[in-house]
């Protein structure tokens, strides 16, 4: 299992390096249209994965799209983990009314089915916005709405620490509550927070892909895995146009790698 995890880690790093260097590796910009070639062309020396409906190089778009998804899903995960740490640690450590209020809020968020909630909030923001604004909106929403399940886990961890002997001893020695929280409670919650961060990344990647296929994710011309997968809607023949499945393959490889690496972090948490 260790070897498989190492292999998954190497794959993930390779995908990340290639996508981060998209401007170096990609033969063209993601929005450049090749008018001399026919749109929807098959693979060639010039266009390794062919061109899309608008004559844009598909390989370049996959690289840039991977960069968007791979950079922003961890950012959204970081945001949601920070929110979860804030809500969970305060609720678990202070207990009483704080905990009841925080858990009621968490229950409220968890009762609303994830995709319905996301769809509702996304629809409340303008849909006709620039591509870069749509990236920010999509991943900001994921980060702001995806904290509830993690907060519950962190709260349970903080509650356990609150009742531990070393915290009792620290309180008896007169340390202030804020200092205790910052110096002793939060560092002990680190493994749980790390696990929640890693768990959130594949969830957010998949959610963005779902939103993209439904036309509510990152807008054109900027590519993301979601918008690239949207092309599959017009997919007619698997055996003749297998190159169109490359974004899906890349997404599956990345999410699987995350899941494999996760098994160790989950155990650590």
């Amino acid at each position, binding site marked *: 299992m260790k070897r498989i995890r190492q292999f998954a880690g190497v794959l993930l790093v390779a995908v990340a390096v290639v996508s981060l260097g998209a401007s170096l590796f990609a033969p063209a910009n993601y929005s450049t249209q090749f008018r001399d070639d026919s749109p929807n062309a098959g693979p060639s020396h010039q266009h390794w994965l062919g061109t899309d409906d608008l004559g844009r190089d598909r390989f370049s778009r996959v690289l840039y799209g991977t960069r968007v998804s791979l950079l922003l899903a961890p950012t959204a995960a970081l945001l949601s983990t920070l929110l979860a740490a804030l809500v969970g640690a305060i609720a678990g450590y202070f207990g009483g009314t704080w905990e009841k209020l925080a858990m*009621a809020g968490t229950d409220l968020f968890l009762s609303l089915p994830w995709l319905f909630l996301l*769809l509702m909030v996304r629809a409340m923001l303008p849909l006709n916005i620039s591509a870069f604004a749509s990236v920010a909106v999509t991943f900001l929403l994921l980060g702001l709405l995806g904290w509830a399940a993690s907060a519950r886990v962190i709260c349970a961890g903080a509650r356990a620490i609150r009742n531990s002997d070393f915290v009792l001893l620290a309180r008896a020695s007169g340390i202030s509550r804020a200092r205790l929280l910052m110096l002793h409670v939060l560092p002990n919650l680190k493994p749980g927070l790390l696990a929640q961060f890693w768990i959130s990344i594949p969830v957010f990647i998949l959610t963005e892909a779902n939103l993209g296929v439904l036309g509510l994710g990152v807008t054109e011309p900027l590519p993301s895995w979601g918008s690239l997968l949207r092309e599959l809607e017009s997919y007619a023949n698997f055996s003749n146009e297998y190159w169109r499945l490359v974004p899906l393959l890349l997404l599956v490889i990345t999410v699987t790698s995350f899941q494999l690496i996760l098994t160790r972090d989950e155990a650590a948490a």
Partner: protein
Amino acid sequence: MFHLVSRHILRLAVTLLLGGLLAATLVRFAPGFDTDEQQLDSRLSSESIVAMRQQRAAHGDVLKFYAGFLGSAITGDFGQSQTLNRPVRELVIERLPVTLKLVGYGLLVGWTLALLFATTATMARVAAWDLATTAAVGLVLCIPSAVLALGIVFLRAPGFLALGLIVFANVFRYWRNLLDKSYAMPHIITARAKGLGTAKILFWHVLPVSATQLLAVAGVSVSVALSASIPVEALCGIPGIGQLAWQAALARDLSLLVTITLLVTMVTMLSNTFSEVLGQAFRTQAA
């Protein structure tokens, strides 16, 4: 039992009230709430435009807006869909049975597959079978539900199969772990050592022991299935609540979307309550 049910009903009412308030606040402060495309219609007289503006302004206070919404909702009036120009109630009544049927079949397929694969994997303990099921489940979990739905469209298979696969993948790992734990219990090891039949052990000893937790996981999977119904219905062309929510989101039909979200929340919470009550009944019977 009575306390459990009343506690859940109270929780449901509070969640719906707070969820409604949250939704109403979001709707009120959503960009473009104060504007109305109809006001640009050159055929309208100035009096009509003033009346429309006054009607919009009356919704300015969130609490008043929400109280008005609640008052109408109690009488069964959930407002008018701006894009489809039809009462929300009518649209929901028309489409809810389609979604319930789809989700029902999907859950049935998912739970059956999960129980079948989890029991065989636990009982057989063949490494290759274990690896194959885990890999298959892992693969389904790594594919976005929208892509699974597209695959189902491509194969011309019924939409509930996509939901079934999603539910199966989400439930399998938990059920497998639960059954593993149950099979490791001393009285079940004794029963196996005494040569009791596999089916007898499963139905008389294993399932009753883990029924409460199995049901809890099943309850949670309803929410998963309802969420997945959006891409499945939207891409498979099934005219249910999920498709309606997607159309409402694309057209920014907020009143419709809020009503659907609250309705789906209610269904989710009711299913959780039902699974917990059933679990409690099992516990009582076992005691």
